[in-house]
């Protein structure tokens, strides 16, 4: 186990800069999730950690040692690839023992460690099979087994669950989390799925176009997103954004172009009349008197909750309710945003106010 420091790392492919100075401190034993939309440079950063891409500038250190020029095999890391990359011509046991064999471990030691790892992951009955004889979930587990056999300083995962079906994904999510709690190995996990990020991470790093938008504990990101991008990215269904102007007239509120008043609890500093974006999560709407007049567009009951897409003025919003709602498209309702749960962002910079 070791801490990992990523300091002002940049990466260019030819003339194109992909990462524009990224710094992430990772403590010993932490589970860090890199999340962001496709193409933002998550995999690239992970591959630089693994030593599969060279570092254009900045430093990466593992366990206090700068590894910029260190060969992958000397970094003492293990990586699980999206497509698992199991060696097709080796059995599960051979796959898992391959790295130990390369290091010249004795046969009995390899055997013992493979057995132990197989036991943890429930792979014991599959040890003599070839990868082609396994299901997707089993392959995934073998890939993880191959990583834990080595007992490395750091685990790296690159979207390990994206090839699995929805149900298995949830199961494996829990399994990986459990494994981490048991082994306490420092882990860097890449995904573009914010639910995975929220449920698994000790610390989430939200990336976008080669920069870090925000870094922090999952619920901090949810409760206090630093900017409009993070606010829209974390949480599902996504936060609603309504444009308006800040007004203080007795109480504080945001006034939309159509004249609706969106309530605020406190008046933030800044001149009234300023252009802002009012953010409210779908679960922070209440139905009832005194709200904004809205017309229902779609009703989507999921059983445990009801999602309603409604139109306020000319903007569509999504609201989620725990209770069942007996409404249908076309109905006129009144939606009341919870003033204490509202977020405000500057219109021009997108920064949180």
């Amino acid at each position, binding site marked *: 186990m070791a801490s990992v420091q990523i300091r002002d790392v940049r990466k260019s492919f030819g003339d194109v800069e992909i990462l524009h100075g990224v710094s992430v401190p990772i403590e010993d034993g932490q589970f860090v999730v890199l999340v962001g939309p496709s193409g933002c440079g998550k995999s690239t950063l992970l591959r630089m950690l693994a*030593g599969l891409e060279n570092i254009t500038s900045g430093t990466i250190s593992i366990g206090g040692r700068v590894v910029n020029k260190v060969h*992958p*095999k000397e970094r003492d*890391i293990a990586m699980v690839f999206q497509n698992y990359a*199991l060696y*097709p011509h080796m059995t599960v046991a051979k796959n898992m023992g391959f790295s130990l064999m390369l290091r010249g471990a004795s046969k009995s030691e390899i055997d013992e460690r493979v057995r132990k790892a197989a036991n943890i992951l429930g792979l014991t009955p599959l040890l003599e099979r070839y*990868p*082609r004889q396994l299901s*997707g979930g089993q392959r995934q587990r073998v890939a993880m087994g191959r990583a834990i056999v080595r007992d490395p300083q750091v685990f790296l995962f690159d979207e390990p669950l994206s*090839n699995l079906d929805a149900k298995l994904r949830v199961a494996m999510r829990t399994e990986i989390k459990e494994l981490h709690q048991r082994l306490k190995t420092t882990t860097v996990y890449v995904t573009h799925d914010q639910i995975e990020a929220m449920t698994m991470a000790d610390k989430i790093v939200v990336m976008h176009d080669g920069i870090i938008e925000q870094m922090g504990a999952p619920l901090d990101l949810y409760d206090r997103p630093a900017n409009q991008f993070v606010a829209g990215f974390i949480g599902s269904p996504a936060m609603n954004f309504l444009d308006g102007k800040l007004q203080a007239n007795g109480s504080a509120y945001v006034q939309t172009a159509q004249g609706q008043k969106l309530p605020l609890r406190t008046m933030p500093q800044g001149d009234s009349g300023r252009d802002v974006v009012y953010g409210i999560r779908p679960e922070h709407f209440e139905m009832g008197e005194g709200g904004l007049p809205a017309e229902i567009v779609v009703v989507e009951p999921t059983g445990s909750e009801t999602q309603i897409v409604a139109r306020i003025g000319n903007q569509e919003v999504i609201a989620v309710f725990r209770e069942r709602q007996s409404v249908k498209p076309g109905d006129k309702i009144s939606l009341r945003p919870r003033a204490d749960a509202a977020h405000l962002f500057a219109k021009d910079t997108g920064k949180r106010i």
Partner: protein
Amino acid sequence: MVKAMTDAAAEKPGTTTQVLTSDTQEGMTYLESIPRRIVTLWLPLGLIMLILLFPFYWMALTSVKPNAQLIDMETYNPFWVVEPTLDHIKKLLFGTQYPRWLWNTMYVATAATFLSIFASVLAAYAIARLKFRGSQVVGATIFMAYLVPPSILFIPLASVIHFYGLFDSPLALILVYPTILIPFSTWLLMGYFKTIPFELEECALIDGASRWQILTKIILPLAVPGLISAFIFSFTLCWNEFIYALTLTTSVQNKTVPVAIVSELVDGDVYRWGSLMAGALVGSLPLVVLYAFFVEHYVSAMTGAVKE
């Protein structure tokens, strides 16, 4: 898709092709009536077989025909033989140095093939996977070398061989044949290596493998069908090679089968057809055996069926 690829790669190559063909056949059969199948499938197939196998038949026939029947087309049916004889074959095996020629051919072909495949594996891996500056150019240049015909190259090569004092020895052929074998094998193997997922190598790199270990423990086991086809191709080419063998060997005991049978079994302008054909027939048997063993690998590697 990558998953499917790696799976297929691991499958015993023979079974993959069988599965593929039987699948496609079964999938469409319900569309075809029996008369239709005869016209679209068996008739053309039969014709092709006839055309391809007829020379073989002729060769076999000639090698067992008594001399009298060979040139007399009036009294005897030329497509059949009465009272077959083993005289030609006996004369070939015991009256000439044929076993020696066969041995030469085998020795030269095997040595040249292994030499070429070894060099090709290294070249192909380097060009396909080590992203060094100019790898594209090197790849293209190697292929250009393949396009230069032996009839142009044999004069300069002959003088090189003379210079090293290797003239009229099997070693001369062993060193010259790779000039034609390496370019083709390199290209074939390059194509094959490129179908092996890159991630496997990266994974092995992280697992602690050196380049050499990646090559021997990951790439080569997965490229076996490709290696077999490169092997068969090279071996066949050496076995049948004529122009270099003719120019670079002169003494009877150093010749290979293709050269020896035309130069040693023809007396002046008298063609000893029986022995000639017997020599050609016996000479082609080892190749037939080789093909019979590996034909599935060969076809699948050539068409890329093993991978996707």
